[in-house]
Structures are given as structure tokens and as C-alpha cells.
């Protein structure tokens, strides 16, 4: 027993300068674990898994089909050409896929975990809360039902647009996609933190916010008044899920720094979400969970 305790003390990393490195190693190890668990979940019943996969893919393509048909019928929407609309829809679907990639097991719907008292499970683990939340929802196989059709749509649009794609532009595209996904998650965490103070009333608030962003993200916002547009880029940042980054990446927006606005917004919202969530966690440590819903492990 004595030997074991010493080993644990030696391994304790926060004071070490190698902590960032060990954190990255740990993140990779955990992502590998959750990827395997996700695969096993689908592979356990192949028929069921494929049905789930197919229906999820159809559902997500159907979500953007309405806008696609409108663009087809009118050969574009406003200032957007038909192919640019396809690009935006592909972008929106991939961003949604990234959210699903990291947001499984109700990480994306964080208010459910908070409201159901399931953060106790996270607190029982010997790792920082951010690390648990960043890894536990990693479901690369289940989420690929959204991600793969999205990538297909994006590639199709790029082919039709005939853009000269440079590596720098591709990197900026990837950064914007990650930023858009981060905005959805941050927005869900900001509102979801209400569940710390009102566990029952706000248990479903994250799903409402995520669904709202998901439904509005496919609309091009050009032509809206400055007040409404300002609101849709700040208080309800739906404009950053697909519309604005697509404008910036396709050069519709003339600003040379347009490609960096979505990442900047993601950073600001992520900081705000971290602050609000941290405040909520302090409240949680004082009051604990007033109830616990036995829906199984973190679901």
C-alpha cells in the first residue's frame, strides 16, 4: 500500500512543466478509449447500428434539403449563387457533425447532466472536469452519419465552385469549422449552466438552444436590418454557424480579416462559457445535486 501511494504522488502532474504534454497524451488516450467504446456500441448489433446510422444521415441531409431546393429553384438566394449555397449547407452540416463528434453522452446537452445530478459521476473521476467533458462525448463512429454527408456536400460545392484551393485556405476552413462547432457548444454551456440554479426547470435548455441554432443555421442572413443581424451575430450567434464564415471563406465578405472573425467569436464565447460554467460548478459544490435521475450512465 505504501509503495502505491508514493507512485501516485510522483505521478501527480499539475506542478510539472511537462503538464501540457502529459495532458495532450491523456487526451489522446481518452479519445482512443471513447472511440473504441463508440465503435463497439455500433458493432454490437450491426443491423441496429446500420439502421441508426442510415436514419441519422437521412435526417441530417433532410435538414438542409429545403434550402437546397430553394436555391435550385431560384438559381441562388439573394447575393448567393446556387453553388455557394451548397457550400454554406455543407459547411453547416460539417460544423454540426463536429458538435456531434465531441458532444455525445449529453456533453452537448450539458443542462441535462447538471439538472439530473450526473456531474457527480464526473467529479468522481481523477481528472480535471474540462478534460472529462472534452473526451467523454467523443463518438467518431456514431457522429460520422452527419460528418460524412457534410464533407461530401462541402467537397461537391468546392468542385462546382472551381476555387483555387491553397493549403492556407484549407487550414482557415478547418479553423472556422472548429470555431463554429465551438460556438454551438459554448452557447449550449452558457445557457445550460442555468441548470446549476434551476435543475428541473432548465434541464432541457441546452437541447432548446442547440436545436434553435441548428434550425436557423441554414438561412442566409443577408438583407436583414442591422439590429436583427447584430442580434443574430451576438446574443443568438447563429450567423457564425455557417452564414458568416461561408461569406468570409468564399470572398463574399470583402474584409481581409473576415476569416478570423468566427474563431475570435468562438474564443470569446468559450471564455464566457468557461466563466459561467465555473461559477455554476462553485454553486454545485455548495448545494450539490438536489435530485438524481437514474437514466443510466451519463445518458
Amino acid at each position, binding site marked *: 500500500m505504501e509503495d502505491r501511494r508514493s507512485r501516485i504522488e510522483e*505521478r501527480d502532474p499539475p506542478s510539472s512543466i511537462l503538464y501540457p504534454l502529459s495532458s495532450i497524451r491523456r487526451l489522446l488516450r481518452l479519445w482512443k478509449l471513447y472511440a473504441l*467504446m463508440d465503435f463497439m*456500441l455500433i458493432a454490437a448489433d450491426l443491423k441496429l447500428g446500420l439502421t441508426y446510422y442510415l436514419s441519422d444521415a437521412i435526417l441530417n441531409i433532410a435538414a438542409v434539403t429545403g434550402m437546397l431546393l430553394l436555391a435550385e429553384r431560384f438559381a441562388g438566394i439573394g447575393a448567393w449563387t446556387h453553388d455557394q449555397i451548397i457550400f454554406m449547407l455543407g459547411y453547416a452540416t460539417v460544423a454540426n457533425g463536429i458538435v456531434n463528434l465531441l458532444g455525445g453522452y449529453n456533453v452537448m446537452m450539458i443542462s441535462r447532466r447538471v439538472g439530473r445530478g450526473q456531474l457527480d459521476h464526473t*467529479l468522481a473521476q*481523477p481528472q480535471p472536469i474540462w478534460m472529462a467533458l472534452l473526451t467523454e462525448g467523443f463518438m467518431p463512429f456514431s457522429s460520422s452519419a452527419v460528418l460524412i454527408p457534410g464533407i461530401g456536400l462541402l467537397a461537391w460545392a468546392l468542385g462546382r465552385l472551381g476555387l483555387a484551393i491553397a493549403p492556407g485556405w484549407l487550414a482557415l476552413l478547418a479553423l472556422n469549422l472548429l470555431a463554429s462547432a465551438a460556438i454551438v457548444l459554448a452557447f449550449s454551456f452558457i445557457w445550460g449552466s442555468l441548470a446549476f440554479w434551476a435543475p428541473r426547470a432548465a434541464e432541457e435548455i441546452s437541447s432548446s438552444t442547440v436545436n434553435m441554432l441548428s434550425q436557423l443555421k441554414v438561412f442566409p442572413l443577408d438583407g436583414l436590418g442591422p439590429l436583427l443581424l447584430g442580434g443574430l451575430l451576438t446574443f443568438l450567434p447563429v450567423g457564425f454557424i455557417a452564414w458568416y464564415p461561408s461569406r468570409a471563406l468564399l470572398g463574399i465578405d470583402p474584409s481581409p480579416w473576415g476569416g478570423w472573425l468566427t474563431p475570435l467569436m468562438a474564443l470569446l464565447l468559450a471564455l464566457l462559457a468557461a466563466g459561467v460554467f465555473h461559477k455554476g460548478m462553485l454553486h454545485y*459544490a455548495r448545494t*450539490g445535486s438536489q435530485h438524481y435521475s*437514474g437514466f443510466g*450512465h451519463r445518458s
Partner: protein
Amino acid sequence: MHAQDHNTTADSDIVVELAGVHKTFRQKQRSERLRDALRNILRPPIREVQALRDIDLRIRRGEIVAYAGPNGAGKSTTIKLLSGMLTPDQGSVRALGMDPVRQRVRYVQRIGVVFGQRTELWNDHPIAASFEWKRVVWDIPRPRYERMKGLVIEVLGLGEFFNSLTRELSLGQKMRAELGLALLHEPEILFLDEPTIGLDVLAKRTILGFIKELNRTERVTIMVTSHDMAELEQLAGRIVMIDRGRLAFDGPFERLRRELSDRRRLLIETPNGTAPVLHGAELMNSQPGRHEYVFDAAQVRIADLLEQASAQTQILDVETHRAPIDEVIADIYSRWRR
């Protein structure tokens, strides 16, 4: 009855220490009357529930401590404080020389927690997957993991359902797996909050036997809450009782019986159907020729009771035995409630 601390214990041997701990929860009260609807929204009356009041408790390494009390007494709050899930309003909570909340990451690496009404198992995966998950998240070295996995599979009998989905298992099987999971990283302290709730006799026996064995061989410190007093007495030498947030008793079970009352039962067989009237004993049950009494042996001598009985009727046979611990505790709880 006074709470008693184990003052004779060397400080270096103390693994759990609560000093002057207070915890209060605030509950909003809501009236059902329509005219109070606005007040319910704007300024609902607040009821303060004192979950823990001035709790002092020390536990030595290798002890098994039964932590008991009626519903709402503060047992689960204490376990949560000691699991790093909750902070006290006042006082200090230390375990293994650490603050469970401030040093949570390091601390939970060295403890195990089992909540009888919660699960750490992954519902849609086999038990094997939950074990592997634990290995990675707790960063358990492979040789230690394999050794502990083999041990818990064998002793808790997990082999037959180790590859079955958690959601397909019975409550007893889940609880055995839950306990096995909590032990994989060889915790130094094990907090068990009603670990045998809803289990059948056989599953209880397996789990209790394993906990005792673990304590004997590995010197794991165990704090266990339960409403089953017979189970707690079987498991622990020391019982800490809590009532409405206050420590009401801390000592061995034997002393608990002695201090509260030496409650015993007396069974008398007589040739006729009438039960003799015994001063100092309460008639619990009477059938023709067979009468059962309960009395406090610290107040009344058995010989006096038998003398009273024999003065009234012929006695064919006599049996006396201690009242079950549950009966003693039920007495205490009802006394506290009065």
C-alpha cells in the same frame, strides 16, 4: 447519550477527519394557493435544512465504520463531503491528508465510492468495457489492473456475466460489478452509501463477506451507511450514529446496546392460555400457552420476572435472547423523533 471521539488514536493513523462541520441546504417553499403564485415566483419562503451540525469525526486507517441514522439524518451529505462532491459551510474536511474538494483530482485517485442508488457502470456496454474504461481513466498500471480484475471477478463471482450488457443484469449482479469496479484501483478508503439496498440475502452475503475480507487483508478503511443494522453490526466494530445533522453516538455496537438499553426478549411457555402480567416487561405477543415479552435487562432482572410469572402460573419452559439490533435502533429513532 454522548458522542465520543477516539481520542486515544495517534494522529498519523487518522485517515478521515471532520472538524466542526456544518452544512445547511436551502429549500424554496411553495404554497399551492393561487393567491400565493406571485410570491412563489418573486420571493418564495426559504426553509433552511441543517444537514450537518458541528460534526467531529475521526477514522483510523483500517477501520470499518458503520454510519447510521434515520432518513434525512445527513449520512449521504457526509459521504458527498468526503467524496469531493460537496463543500462544508463551516469546519474542515480532511481525508488522507487532503482537502477532498480542493485536491479532488489527486484525492479521488486514492478513494473508492459506491452509491447504492447510482451507477458508474456504462449501461449500454458489457461490464468488461466499464472495467477497461476505469483502467484508462484512473490510469491504473496494467499489472495492478489485471491482478485486481482477476481478484474481483473471482471473489464477487462476476465471471458468468462479465461480458453481458449492464442493462441486462439483475440488481444484485450490477451491485457486485459496481463494487468490483470501485476496487480496481485499490482505494485506501472505501465509502459505501447503502451498497446492499434492494439486494437478496445471497447477494448481500457475497458483498459483505468481500468487504470484510478486503478490510482484513488489504487494511482498506471503510465507511458504510445502511438502514440494515444487523448488516452493519456484522460488518463493523464501530458505529457512528447521526440524527438531524448531529452526531448522536460514536462507539462500539456493544456499548450502543449497553448505553441505550439492554433490550431482551423473554419467551415463557405455560400450560394454560393466559399470559402472566409481568411488571417491568411488555407483552409483545401471546398465543395459547406461549407468551413473548420484551424488557430492559439493565433495569429488570430476569429472575424477578420469572418469580412474578411462577407466582401466577406454572412455567413449562423459558427462553431469553437479545433483541435484534434493528429493534434497538428503531427504539432510538422513535426516541429521537419524540
